[in-house]
């Protein structure tokens, strides 16, 4: 099963294994990983699922709508910023590590 490691702002980590088709946002909510809110339920409309992707993962291009929402994150957008609801296990990665921002809203 695909694996996601979340690095919390305070240094703690959570690693979860999730079925293919699960987004980084859903994986966090379903596995009690804090630090992701997902207020819009994964509609690319709230930017409360912001993550920073570690390392060199070959993810799909950022779409126009994701790009626009990434400009609205609570913590600064960096080069490796993505919306957790737009990056999906299996389809986009087998294993991934992400840093969580201090704040989502």
């Amino acid at each position, binding site marked *: 099963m695909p694996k996601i490691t979340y690095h919390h702002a305070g240094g703690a980590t959570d690693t979860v294994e999730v079925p293919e*088709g699960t987004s980084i946002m859903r994986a966090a*909510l379903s596995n*009690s990983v804090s630090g992701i809110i*997902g207020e*819009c*339920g994964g*509609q*690319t409309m709230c930017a409360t699922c912001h993550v920073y992707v570690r390392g060199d993962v070959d993810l799909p291009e950022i779409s126009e709508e994701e790009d626009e929402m990434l400009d*609205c994150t609570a913590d600064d957008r960096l080069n490796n910023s993505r919306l957790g609801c737009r990056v999906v296990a299996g389809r986009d990665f087998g294993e991934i590590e992400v840093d969580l921002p201090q704040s989502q809203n």
Partner: protein
Amino acid sequence: MSTVIIGAGHAGVQAAESLRTEGYADRIVLLDKAEHLPYQRPPLSKDYIKAGGDPAPLPLRGAAFYGEHDIDLRTGVEVVRIDSQAQLVFVKGGEPIPYNELIIAAGAEARRAHCAGNGLEGINYLRTVEDAETLRAQLDRGYGRVVVVGAGFIGLEFAAVAAQRGLDVTVIDFAQRPMQRVLSPSMSDYFTQVHTDLGVKLHFDEGLDHFVGEQGRVTAVAGTSGVTYPCDFAVVGLGVVTDEDLAAAGRIECDRGILVDEYLSTNVPHVYAIGDLAVFPSHHFGGNLRLESVQNATDMAKTVAKTIAGNPSRYDIAPWFWSNQGPVKLQIAGLADPADVVIERGNRSTGKFSQFLFRDGQLVAVESVNAPADHVAARKLLEHDAGITMEQARDHDFDLKAYARNLSSSAMTPS
């Protein structure tokens, strides 16, 4: 000492969490009559019913969250009565639960169709995951005719998904236009086009008269015009009703919802109401309002938590809302009135634009289509009471994003 919360929906769960964030150290009991881990409702009429949709409802918080925050979540527990004198909450088949503070966050139920034939099989509502499950099974067949009664958000979200999944979809509503009460007429007209392009057949000025059935199952919806619309199943989206009985028995004042003041307090001491069922006084818009949105549920929850934790706070927040219908992501900041003056930015022919709505020269609402950055900027403007002028809105060189960004960095944000 304890706070009891009735209802673990968007409002109740957020209230429990915010009580902890605000430093509330006493007991928190969170009750819900549903058996599930509390989940998010908006996806139920969107991703959840799409082809290859979500496997399970999206939880509001993970299962471990409640224990970690010392929140005593009890699912499958229905509150049947409130005794506000003795400060007790009575539950079905259990001991009464005492409270020092009570938050009623019991949401609302789908309004039932009161007409002949309403008990037939194949008539569906869409409020709970069970409802969505039933509809998904119908949609998974990939064919058939469905009549949607009511062209509000939920009915139209469902209609768009059903049309995209290959069903033959008819929508009837006694109004003149889709989402008539909450959208500007020009935005509403835009959605008529969107749904028509999806193949949805819209019939306005057409109320629900009755359901027609054979062998206990619905076969058609009869409109007030006399026309009958054949169907394999029907979806009723006529809005919601709030359960006033629970409150009224506890001597809590109601008027199409539970009446609260600006602190979200009811007329009964130590009893608060938040979310879909709360009717509150709005300074922003004047008069009493009841809103059905995640924003309203979440922000009311945060506000009431502050008050209970010893930092009395008023609820006076500019509302916002979103909806997904086919290719369109609609986001609304503020509240529209059909009489508002509309200034369009961007170009609707590109499927990406926003409408800025003005009342007496003041910016009151912004409706955005596939333009989330406009929406986020609009929320900032309304939050800071720093509306732009009609001239600025008309000026296509005016940099809205930059203007909003400057607001958030320079303004003193009230806490």
